[in-house]
């Protein structure tokens, strides 16, 4: 058994704590069961199944912390693990930034577990692969995709009375379909906690349709263009806004080495940073993107504003930095929500006189942390829009752009969509900077 119930987990954690001789002891117990299928060249290439459980004990004496872990949960193994953590703590160098473990916290309720997802079978995974492969084959195209699902639990307890537990399910689907003449490529990406929301046929069709549309792309001159960025370009594993979220650390800002540093000291909380139509926040209980309501050290994840009407409201404060600054610690968010409108991508296209539709961005890397300048390329579906219509596919281009500049050049927002645990709308942006052409399809 790699996924334990709240009661089962608590029983083990209580036992672990009963062995502790340290000044403070904190224990985490987590496990997962996951399966995946990978396909390429219109055939299943690999399929995998994993089960794992891990108990991690942290012992603390003064400012010294030692950690040890085990995947065997009999009494003797548990006690050995506790003793080892204590031995390591006594030998560990002092960490002046080590914080006392947290007392019991109040956590929000979030429904992250769905039985439907926990019941996914290898046959279902194979059928997801088969759906994309057969659609692609029928149209003379080639599918490559990956589908992964799992059930996870995590529990945390400490000698100061804290206990937290979460059980969640999740799935991720990505599909790339390429035309056999090598001139077109399309992409689809979906993620859910609840598999009943996933539609393998329709979601595979997105990639197939984009591949068909993207055949025989034409080159246009790089430069500044109005772009419509789909959510995958904003917050997928390669998303331009992920990097903005990753830059929200208060410490780097206060230390003077972040975009969010204020000249002369301090940070930019309270300053208008981006377009006033932008409201960006996090909510681990949101039914579209439910997430665990606490992070690894037990700190509660709450509903939190990052930008309200374009004004920076908060930064991420770890417990040490919060204690130094005399503020409340703020957990790193599980995902972000950006308010939008009811406009679909098609609606945004209709309102566009001249512009570019971007399906996805790729290989995004930081160029200048001071200005949050990033470079990367478009991929798997880039189209030229004129007079409210997609005219033709265009060749991919490299961009050099800062999400800060981009979010100040906001033109319109569409309807938010779940992507990679976030809920964000497609965005139309003016003057997005493309710096060179790529021959890549």
């Amino acid at each position, binding site marked *: 058994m790699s996924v334990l119930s709240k009661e089962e987990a608590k029983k083990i954690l209580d036992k672990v704590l009963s062995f502790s001789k340290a000044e403070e002891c904190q224990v985490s117990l987590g496990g997962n069961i996951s399966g995946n299928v990978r396909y390429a060249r219109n055939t299943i290439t690999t399929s995998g199944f994993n089960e794992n459980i891990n108990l991690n004990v942290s012992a603390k004496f003064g400012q010294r912390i030692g950690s040890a872990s085990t995947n065997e949960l009999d009494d003797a193994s548990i006690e050995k693990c506790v003793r080892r953590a204590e031995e390591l703590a006594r030998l560990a160098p002092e960490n002046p930034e080590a914080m006392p473990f947290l007392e019991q916290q109040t956590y929000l309720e979030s429904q992250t577990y769905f039985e439907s997802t926990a019941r996914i079978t290898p046959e279902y995974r194979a059928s997801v692969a088969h759906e994309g492969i057969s659609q692609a084959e029928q149209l003379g195209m080639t599918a490559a995709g990956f589908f992964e699902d799992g059930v996870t639990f995590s529990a945390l307890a400490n000698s100061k009375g804290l206990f937290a537990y979460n059980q969640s399910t999740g799935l991720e689907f990505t599909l790339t379909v390429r035309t056999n003449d090598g001139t077109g490529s399309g992409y689809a990406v979906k993620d859910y906690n609840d598999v009943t929301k996933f539609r393998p046929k329709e979601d595979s069709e997105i990639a197939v349709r984009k591949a068909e549309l993207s055949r025989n792309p034409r080159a246009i001159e790089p430069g500044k263009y109005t772009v419509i960025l789909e959510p995958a370009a904003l917050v997928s594993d390669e998303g331009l806004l992920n990097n903005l979220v990753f830059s929200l650390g208060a410490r780097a800002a206060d230390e003077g080495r972040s975009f969010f540093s204020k000249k002369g000291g301090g940070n930019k909380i309270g300053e208008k940073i981006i377009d006033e139509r932008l409201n960006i926040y996090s909510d681990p209980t949101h039914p579209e993107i439910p997430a665990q309501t606490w992070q690894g050290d037990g700190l509660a994840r709450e509903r939190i504003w990052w930008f309200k009407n374009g004004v920076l409201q908060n930064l991420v404060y770890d417990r040490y930095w919060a204690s130094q600054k005399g503020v409340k610690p703020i957990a790193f968010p599980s995902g972000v929500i950006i308010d939008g409108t009811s406009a679909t991508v098609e609606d945004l296209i209709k309102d566009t006189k001249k512009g570019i539709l971007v399906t996805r961005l790729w290989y995004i890397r930081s160029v200048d942390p001071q200005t949050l300048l990033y470079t990367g390329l478009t991929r798997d579906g880039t189209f030229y829009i004129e007079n409210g219509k997609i005219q033709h596919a265009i060749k991919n281009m490299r961009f050099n752009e800062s999400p800060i500049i981009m979010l100040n050049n906001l033109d319109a927002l569409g309807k938010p969509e779940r992507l990679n645990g976030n809920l964000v709308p497609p965005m139309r942006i003016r003057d997005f900077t493309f710096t060179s052409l*790529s021959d890549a399809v």
Partner: protein
Amino acid sequence: MNRRDFIQLAALGAGAMLLPLPTFAKEISESELLTPILSTADKKRLADVALNTARSNGASYCDVRIGRYLRQFVFTRENKVQGVQNTESFGVGIRVIANGTWGFASTNRVTADGIKKAAETAVAIAKANSKFQKEPVRLAPTKALGEVSWKTPIEKNAFEVPIKEKTDFLLSVNDAAMKNGANFVSSSLFLVNEQKYFASTDGSYIDQDIYRIWPTFNVTVIDKTTGKFQSRSELAAPMGMGYEYLSARPEGKYQLPEGVIGYGKYYDMIEDATLAAQHVKQKLKAKSVEPGKYDLVLDPAHLWLTIHESVGHPLELDRVLGYEANYAGTSFATLDKWQSRSFNYGSPIVNLFADKTQPTSLGAVGYDDEGVTTKQWDLIKDGILVNYQAIRDQVHILGEKESHGCCYADSWSSVQFQRMPNVSLAPGKTKLSVADMIAGVDKGIYIVGDSSYSIDQQRYNFQFTGQLFYEIKNGKIVGMLKDVAYQSNTQEFWNSCVAICDESDYRLGGSFFDGKGQPGQVSAVSHGSSTTRFNNVNVINTARNV
């Protein structure tokens, strides 16, 4: 987790406490890192259980990997030790061919019973998947090696060095940077030991003990009057070496123009951190680059990453064939270009070779993860594309009878697949120093160290930055530049290569956490070169006002 994730976590001040453990890994003590779990004889006995079970269940081939993967990561910033993490991952991966189809299963129950069950599962999976099989596996033959072993030739096992010595050392590195004007400095040490036992039904029993080390730092200086900040990271490479790499022996040093010091087989980390703080102060005052065409003189500590992205990745045969299309991408270097035997990947002086044997490199092993003896082979010969990187079930596509020996799995629980070997640029054949190369440039930029890197999914269009940029005018360095990035196209770039320094300047760079595959796997790989000149490359200015 790739290097970028580490940097992002570090930027959030996460330190070691929030680092996720590798899959199936557990945290252990220093003394346990040094205590062997199984003898070679025990491993052979257990491996035979897998081979016999697979055979009797109908597999035509089986390989088994009993792996113990040890890591020690040490993190510091300024005068503080942020964390030390020792992890061990121990288990068995069994791969079989049944009905012409691969099957794989793994377990952390390293007992005869656990291994027997995993072998049975692997065969069952192969048989189940064979229903969908369109191209039965064709495995190139490999020699039965009997019982052999290989160990990274280290002088001093870094895991045996007391942790206190390591943290004291990193704190002295930080101290050197702070004394020279740094406002912030973080430094880390990543150590890896892979104890891998491989056996196959081909009759090979291979015991390997592999070591890697990566010392890394980042130094930041803030100009309080302007609010601007600049940083520099280390100019040394991760290596397939022991703790002797940090011994700062003078033969590891390369005196470069403008007082820059490059490092080869030995690294003086304290000296590098001292220079880094000085460099960062200069960077704050450096001139912003005028965009345009420049001749680039690229130091090996920079060029390795350009080789990695624009030569290493596009010549992975699985990418070329489309197996990585959904994630890492495909390749512009298609089979027809190779078949033509006339595709000018680079200028005639460009010779790039793959090598899994190069001493001190990250990729050096005696045998790969499917029991093939490692070797060196040409990828680009006199500028022409002549080969790819391929493993046992791929080489028939290239008309070859023997695997290249570049198969790797990052854990016993991962399926082994084709991974990039060390790919390096052969040094120039005629004597040429860095100073002489610079003397021949009218309008150029000398770039040292790697930084931002980005390339498209077929490996045509790329953009790179670096750590240090020096402007060259009429054969002389006239000062430091900032805001420099160059953009080019792989074929155009390598065809603009006009000069390569000789062997005396040849050094390795490398990546400790190169990512590929779904689910993702990491691997470590080195890339060697001497300083090299590329003419007329497009340089952009990356400064922005926000």
